[in-house]
């Protein structure tokens, strides 16, 4: 969801890499007050000053200090503190796998909890803030968690060596038990207190990957499957606190609308309604339960000023953006001085214009947060995907210093980027309501599905205009590419770091840079701003750039009379991993084998978030002309595969998520209002539309990279390419529901 360039990462004066050289200079701290157990903490480099305000020292309760990744209790429980946010992508299991591997803990003794807001201890070292996004979790944690686990193991071994008076070299650790000569053995819990008294080793030996017993094994299963299969997981909507109230907010009906006045007389008469308060977000109706709150909201009389509502409509935006693209005077992304000459001497051209609508994330759990102002402090319970943002924003809204604000981060019912935002919109809403009611009672702000879908923070609407000059042999000789759409980063605190010379790299990632060798490119970008706020949406810029690049490559291959795989390979230089997944997907899909009449294959490959994914889609048309995706073959190269079955799961889910947007995804704005509001008009994928997905993981010893997002980008172009083969129609405006198909 968020990919920050190196300059936005933590200051590391002599090393550009946060995971390799930097780690050797990172000291290990042993936390004080750990007498009852072993606590290991990594000392991270100082974070960028901008985030320093969110730094808070958590006060330990009970036996253990929280500034740590590992706690071992005398009763032999091994508790891992998870610094990343779980939205279903499996990061809890992933980080635990690495820690348990190097610690040699037994999988059955693992417990996890989510880290408090503390950027010094729990920063995402690739983002320079505490937060989860950009498919960076495993990449930034890999060496950090390995060292944390190995340090814990070394201290347990040292404690056993001391107790048994034997050399450490004679001691082994297997599945949570420390073994010494003569059959002596001890559990981690039995050694915890002694280990806690020992000095923390400065240097520890990491396992040889060939000795891994958990990393790379499909036998490691998710830690949250049982709770989620039995309804016992606690999400924000499930939080129970004494006297907890529920609030729903009457939000502005259009972007930019403001409240003139409201009449709460009838709302206050609804049984169960306790308060009606005006907050920055609208008018909040607070009640003893959700139904009363909804009834109260329905009874409000609201007078909105719509004079400033906008943008007028998606249709107008497309017109405006097409005109901007045609002007060709956008900010330069990449300009080859030879471009104009190359284009002028082209024998022919291929021109195409592409349109992508606003998209809502539509996570299953509508946004919500519990806020409780009491005893001069604020506590929140919520899906805090970006604690650094949420902590600072919540403190500001409450008028408290950050040390008086405690975030409790919970499991989330999906996110796809929505829960990480610069404004912490739903968290701040809860704080504002808690403040407005003026009593020290906890209150949960709960958005309805419609509130959630109409609140903005969408994947922005984009237009691409591409013109490729071809030589006499139909080979690309010049590439002109204009991208138009809101900058996702411009309204955020990261703008300065991520926007260079008017170019937000997330608007063009996938067009430039690209693994392809583009002939004499001229790539430009317009970033108009709009009243509807933009946000990263699972795979960010790649949601549209991969579609344009991969359908255009396919069209160019067709024009040249070349095989789509061979054509792509011919436009690559020194891209072995990109080429590798392309060839693997083709091979596993039986690319060379003809399909029966009425079916066609399409292929696409894309590099995003340092991971390479190629997909082959097999597509047919139903009797009424609807595209049906029958099978998708995925090849993924994400370096070392930590949890292979979770990589498979993310690829399966990525395909399904992408298909929903391809088929139906569209927030259409009219009169400044989003037309769609629920799953009936913003359709998402259903069981009967899910293709068979087969995933092949490229064996690799490279450092691990992310898989939460990279499965998404290739799906839509692979399907579109298959549809083009099947019907002769090249789809340049999404979603597909705007097109009717006929077999060619």
């Amino acid at each position, binding site marked *: 969801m968020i990919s920050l360039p190196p300059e936005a990462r933590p200051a590391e004066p002599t090393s550009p890499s946060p995971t390799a050289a930097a780690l050797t200079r990172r000291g290990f701290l042993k936390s004080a007050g750990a007498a009852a157990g072993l606590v290991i903490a990594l000392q991270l480099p100082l974070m960028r000053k901008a985030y320093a305000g969110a730094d808070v020292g958590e006060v330990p309760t009970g036996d253990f200090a929280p500034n740590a990744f590992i706690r071992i209790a005398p009763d032999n429980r091994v508790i891992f503190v998870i610094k990343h946010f779980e939205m279903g992508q499996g990061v809890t299991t992933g980080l635990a796998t690495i820690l348990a591997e190097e610690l040699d803990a037994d999988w059955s003794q693992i417990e996890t909890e989510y880290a408090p807001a503390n950027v010094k201890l729990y920063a995402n070292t690739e983002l320079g803030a505490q937060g989860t996004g950009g498919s960076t979790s495993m990449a930034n944690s890999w060496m950090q968690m390995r060292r944390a686990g190995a340090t814990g193991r070394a201290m347990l071994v040292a404690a056993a060596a001391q107790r048994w008076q034997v050399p450490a070299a004679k001691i082994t650790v297997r599945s949570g038990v420390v073994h010494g000569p003569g059959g002596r053995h001890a559990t981690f819990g039995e050694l915890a207190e002694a280990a806690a008294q020992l000095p923390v080793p400065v240097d520890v030996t990491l396992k040889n990957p060939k000795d891994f017993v958990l990393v790379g094994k499909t036998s490691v299963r998710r830690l*949250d499957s049982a709770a989620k299969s*039995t*309804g016992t997981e606690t999400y924000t909507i*499930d939080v129970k606190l004494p006297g907890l109230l529920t609030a729903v907010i009457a939000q502005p009906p259009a972007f930019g609308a403001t409240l003139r006045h409201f009449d709460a007389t009838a709302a206050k008469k609804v049984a169960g309604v306790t308060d009606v308060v005006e907050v920055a977000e609208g008018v909040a109706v607070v009640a003893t339960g959700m139904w009363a709150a909804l009834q109260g909201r329905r009874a409000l009389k609201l007078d909105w000023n719509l004079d400033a509502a906008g943008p007028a409509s998606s249709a107008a935006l497309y017109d405006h953006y097409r005109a901007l693209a045609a002007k060709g005077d956008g900010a330069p992304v990449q300009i080859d001085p030879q471009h104009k000459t190359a284009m002028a001497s082209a024998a022919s051209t291929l021109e195409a214009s592409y349109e992508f609508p606003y998209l809502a994330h539509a996570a*299953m759990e509508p946004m919500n947060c519990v806020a409780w102002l009491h005893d001069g402090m604020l506590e929140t319970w919520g899906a805090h995907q970006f604690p650094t943002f949420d902590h600072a924003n919540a403190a500001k809204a409450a008028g408290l210093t950050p040390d008086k604000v405690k975030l409790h981060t919970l*499991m989330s019912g999906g996110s796809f980027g929505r829960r990480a935002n610069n404004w912490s919109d739903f968290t701040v809403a809860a704080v504002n309501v808690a403040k407005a009611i003026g009593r020290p009672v906890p209150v949960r702000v709960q958005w309805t599905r419609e509130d959630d879908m109409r609140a903005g923070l969408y994947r922005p609407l984009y237009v691409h205009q591409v013109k490729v000059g071809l030589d006499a042999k139909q080979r690309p000789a010049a590439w002109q590419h204009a991208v138009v759409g809101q900058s996702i980063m411009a309204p955020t605190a990261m703008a300065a770091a991520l926007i260079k010379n008017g170019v937000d790299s997330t608007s063009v990632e996938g067009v430039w840079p690209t693994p392809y060798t583009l002939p004499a490119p001229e790539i430009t970008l317009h970033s108009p701003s709009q009243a509807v706020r933009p946000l990263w949406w699972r795979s960010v810029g790649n949601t549209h750039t991969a579609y344009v690049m991969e359908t255009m490559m396919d069209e160019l291959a067709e024009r040249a009379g070349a095989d789509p795989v061979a054509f792509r390979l011919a436009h690559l230089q020194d891209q072995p991993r990109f080429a590798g997944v392309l060839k693997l997907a083709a091979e596993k899909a039986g690319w060379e084998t003809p399909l029966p009449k009425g079916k066609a294959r399409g292929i696409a490959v894309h590099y995003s978030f340092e991971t390479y994914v190629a997909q082959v889609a097999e597509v047919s048309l139903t009797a009424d002309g609807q595209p049906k995706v029958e099978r998708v073959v995925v090849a993924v190269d994400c370096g070392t595969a930590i949890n292979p079955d*979770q990589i498979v799961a993310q690829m399966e*889910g990525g395909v399904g998520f992408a298909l929903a947007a391809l088929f139906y995804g569209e927030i259409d704005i009219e009169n400044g209002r989003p037309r769609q509001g629920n799953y009936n008009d913003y359709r998402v994928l259903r069981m009967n539309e899910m293709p068979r997905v087969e995933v092949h993981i490229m064996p690799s010893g490279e450092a691990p990279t992310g898989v939460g997002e990279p499965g998404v980008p290739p799906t839509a172009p692979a399907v579109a390419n298959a549809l083009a083969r099947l019907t002769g129609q090249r789809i340049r405006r999404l979603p597909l529901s705007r097109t009717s198909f006929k077999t060619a």
Partner: protein
Amino acid sequence: MIEFKVNGETRKVDADPQTPLLWVLRDELGLTGTKYGCGIAQCGACTVHLEGRSLRSCSAPVAAVAGQNVTTIEGLGSKTAKAVQQAWIALDVVQCGYCQSGQVMSAVALLDQNPRPSDEDIDLAMSGNICRCATYQRIRAAIHAASDALSA
């Protein structure tokens, strides 16, 4: 007062008769395994059983279930339910997990009525349950696995 049975226990609630069963379960009875997703019977996250059949509790007024038996995810205990949940866990079906209570409830109702469902039967019975993480392939496999386990 509206009286009905939840998970075998008689419950009396003093609620507006139009209150959707979902909010009575969650806010009055503290049974939060049943989830809110859309409020208009489009997503299935709120699925419970009414006399053994799937019901979207977000769109059923509590008055409509008076005198009847409601089962929520907390009250599952049948052989079918155990097989379904075991298959869910064995195959690591879940991702974010928010829809999965509803998925499990629909799957149990399906297998109770049709112990050997085909893929088409599964499509028909489960297409009312949205999973935004798109875990559908594993849901399908888990239903088949549970069916196999129950027939073994």
